[in-house]
């Protein structure tokens, strides 16, 4: 990838001779558990409060304390929030990585560092800003243990002064970080001020990067995808939640527990209108979801790769016995335990076919907090409409990073519980067959346990059964059943969220992507058009099975790039399975699987490489 990628970066660098306004990538290198998270979030927030579009990505190790951690903030006036490979301003706090980090910087970039690290002796093409952090906090925090925690926030002040973040916003942002701890807030604000003053007095100023107030974040919120998903579940009326902790999905459930405790204790009775169970493992977690969904609850669990693998057997049961339930898969890097704190879209193929035999699953593909909030609601509706599991395929990048978002909309539609028959409805029916395709859409009717009518009870099983839910080893019953399940999957195609298509005039090719690949693509499409004269169309997938729009999109283009964040081009493979040769012939796979949030630079270089290759008649 490197040659082209480098060229692009150089190009960007070349244009930076004048001051860049509201366009900067800040990289803060600290150690895990050193209290840097509050400092970084406050830094992000202060920029956000100035009205400048901003995003934050945390690159953290799979341990609890002491290992290197990086936080990248990108502020961009155009609203580009994807990761960039190039960093403009490094804050080097971690002795372990400082040298490595420094040598990754482009010439001319800015480096704030902890003075004892003496980084300035290592390179002479960098603008260095040494800061004696320990000295600065000593005055205000005599206790050495506490000091370690406050030390980081000093760089908020330094960076503020250096690139023009307003101190009032820095203070406000810090206060937001400590909503119920005014003392801690005050101390931190003091530390930031010390940093600001130090920078003002002792550090040279620079004119390469400058932040200026604008109005692009007004009315927006900052939220991580897991919390957004949790809010979606809250308003979807989830009633049974099960889980087994696993990074990066744990915070989805932990946020949800907070929300449920706050909003779902019945004011009249003082009792909970929900149940949360921390299960003994993921097998039990999905088993409980299945049991609850069967008995009528809106049930869900959240997990990541290893959990998905363990859920395989129950996934097949839910498919075959037709039981609703929602599973959030906040994907991380696999195979196996892999890199638990890195991001990847690696579970698509295994989830689509999760279980032995002919099992097929529905997946939703959110790419933003707004969308995962809404898809959470859709997932519960779809699960009950289809009487099947619905997997919401998030990833670590979406789930655990901070995103700017529009405030979420209150659900427009009432909750859709699908085809459930009450005692009254049963009374009117001549005949009720649990697995009968009455409506021709492959979706049968069901009754809930406890329905007081003699037609209601049926026996659910993962073994062969006829339309009346009776045990059957008859091969014709079996074929009918499996064909109907296929038909239901076709119906799912019509019910799942449609892709989002964005077009440009005279597009040379199409791009198909999904999930968090969205952000680099937005930026790259602009770059391709502006810098390379290449207009493109873009289809963002939002669900599997695919809807007809995908086929149409392929048909409309000479060729389309399919972008996957995994090694095996999993979405591309699913598309190959679905399509005929004409469409397959137009598909070109582009992949990235380094576990980092997909960067614009990477996507651009992948596409340009291909374009060059095809020009050279490969």
């Amino acid at each position: 990838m490197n040659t082209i990628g480098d060229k692009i970066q150089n190009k960007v660098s070349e244009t930076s001779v004048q001051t860049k306004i509201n366009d900067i990538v800040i990289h803060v290198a600290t150690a895990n558990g050193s209290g840097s998270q509050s400092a970084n979030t406050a830094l992000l927030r202060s920029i956000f409060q100035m009205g400048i579009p901003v995003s934050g990505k945390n690159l953290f190790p799979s341990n609890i304390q002491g290992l290197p951690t990086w936080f990248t903030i990108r502020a961009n006036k155009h609203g580009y929030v994807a990761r960039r490979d190039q960093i403009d301003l490094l804050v080097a706090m971690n002795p372990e990585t400082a040298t490595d980090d420094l040598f990754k910087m482009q010439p001319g970039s800015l480096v704030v560092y902890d003075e004892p690290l003496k980084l300035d002796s290592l390179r002479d093409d960098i603008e260095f800003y040494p800061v004696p952090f320990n000295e600065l906090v000593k005055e205000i925090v005599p206790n050495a243990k506490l000091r370690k925690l406050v030390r980081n926030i000093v760089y908020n002040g330094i960076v503020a002064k250096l690139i023009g973040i307003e101190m009032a916003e820095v203070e406000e942002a810090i206060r937001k970080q400590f909503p119920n701890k005014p003392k801690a807030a005050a101390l931190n604000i003091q530390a930031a001020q010390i940093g600001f003053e130090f920078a003002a007095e002792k550090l040279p100023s620079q004119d390469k990067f400058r932040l200026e107030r604008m109005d692009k974040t007004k009315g927006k919120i900052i939220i991580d995808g897991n919390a957004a998903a949790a809010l979606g579940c809250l308003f979807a009326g989830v009633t049974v939640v099960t889980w087994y902790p696993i990074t990066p999905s744990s915070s989805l459930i932990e946020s949800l527990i907070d929300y449920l405790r706050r909003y779902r204790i019945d004011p009249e009775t003082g009792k909970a209108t929900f149940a949360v169970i921390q299960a003994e493992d993921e097998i039990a977690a999905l088993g409980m979801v299945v049991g609850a969904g069967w008995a009528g609850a809106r049930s869900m669990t959240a997990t990541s790769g290893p959990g998905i693998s363990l859920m395989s057997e129950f996934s097949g049961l839910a498919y075959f016995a037709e039981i609703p339930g929602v599973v959030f898969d906040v994907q991380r890097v696999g195979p196996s335990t892999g890199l638990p704190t890195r991001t990847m879209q690696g579970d698509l193929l295994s989830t689509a076919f999760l279980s032995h035999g002919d099992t097929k699953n529905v997946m939703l593909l959110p790419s933003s907090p707004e969308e995962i909030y809404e898809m959470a609601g859709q997932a519960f509706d779809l699960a009950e409409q289809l009487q099947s599991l619905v997997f919401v395929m998030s990833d670590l990048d979406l789930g655990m990073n901070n995103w700017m978002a529009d405030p979420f909309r209150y659900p427009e539609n009432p909750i859709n519980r699908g085809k459930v028959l009450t005692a009254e409805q049963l009374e009117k029916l001549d005949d009720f067959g649990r697995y009968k395709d009455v409506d021709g859409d492959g979706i049968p009717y069901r009754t809930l346990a406890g329905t007081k009518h003699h037609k209601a009870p049926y026996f659910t099983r993962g073994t062969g059964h006829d339309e009346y839910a009776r045990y059957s080893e008859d091969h014709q019953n079996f074929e009918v059943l499996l064909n109907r399940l296929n038909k239901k999957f076709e119906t799912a195609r019509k019910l799942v969220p449609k892709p989002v298509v964005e077009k440009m005039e005279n597009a040379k090719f199409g791009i198909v992507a999904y999930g968090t690949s969205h952000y680099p693509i937005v930026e790259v499409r602009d770059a391709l058009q502006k810098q390379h004269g290449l207009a493109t169309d873009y289809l963002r997938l939002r669900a599997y099975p695919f809807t007809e729009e995908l086929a149409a999109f392929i048909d409309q283009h000479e060729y389309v790039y399919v972008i996957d964040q995994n090694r095996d081009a999993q979405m591309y493979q699913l598309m190959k399975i679905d399509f005929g040769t004409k469409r397959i012939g137009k598909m070109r796979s582009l992949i990235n699987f380094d576990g980092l949030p997909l960067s614009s630079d990477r996507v651009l270089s992948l596409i340009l490489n291909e374009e060059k290759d095809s020009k050279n008649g490969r």
Partner: protein
Amino acid sequence: MADRQKVVTPNPALKLNQAGFDLGLYKGGKTTLCAGCGHNAISERIVSAFYEMNIDPYSVVKLSGIGCSSKSPAYFLSASHGFNAVHGRMPSVATGALLANRTLLGIGVSGDGDTASIGIGQFVHLMRRNLPLVYIIEDNGCYGLTKGQFSATADIGSTLKTGVVNDFQPIDTCVLAIELGATFVARSFSGDKKQLLSILKAAIAHRGTAMIDVISPCVTFNDHEGSTKSYAYVQEHEEYFGEVSFVPYFEEINVDYEPGETVNVTMHDGSQLLLSKLPENYSPNNRAESIQKLIERRTQGELVTGIFYVNPEEQNLFDRLNLDDAPLGTLPQEKVRPKPEALDELMAELM
């Protein structure tokens, strides 16, 4: 072709119980288990227990794993929703189902393979949670459905028909259950109609996890010499832990009692349980003692039956979760979707 009749319709020609339900609703489909299988006897007791206890069959859910034993829910309570889950995982499915609708009465049937081998993890955690559920292990010391391999409750030294000898100590599910916090733990024998019926009734009335290990010989694979679970062996070696008889809706009897006497434990529905107290100072509400007793007698090679431990006071899972009284699964939208103001409030906090 399967039989075309799909539901058991109420048949008022049959004798009704006090709740007005006829016996047919408590019966199930024709068994496909082997003639003489202990599991069938258990199904029959279950039919009687629910019928005689006047339980509304439409409010019952019956669940199981996979195995001959786990097929049996198809052979009782045809008017109840049933769920034959996957092997060893009935506890989680039952937990979900009952959380979705706490007004249901749950009965779970498992086998010794289903519970003590593949399912021991879910068993352990079910016992800890005290989910209101009657949990029956139809315990034959082997895997019937896969043709007779040893399960983890097979006695050490017992032999398969092929001559293979079991080298491993059996798991005592009763000791485990008591230690793990189950609030009703008993053992019976499928051939002992009277005792099993009594225990079942007590279990049905209990408002927490009621675990019953029912020794249920597999006539096909495990009824041969060398097997300690065979009918002959059980009948020879069985010994009663206490005389158990169930007395529904009688007046309350004091639980404070002396060794050698009889104790009444009051169940939550007001029905009571009569136990003969062992002279060895056995008390049905002392965890440590009942475990000790069980291990002691086991060490002496005795098969003890009876109700070993009952604690009707312990909070069950619903209590612990402070669960709404209404079934979660059918709460109306107003109860489960917070108002728009809630969203506004949340959004404001995130701005």
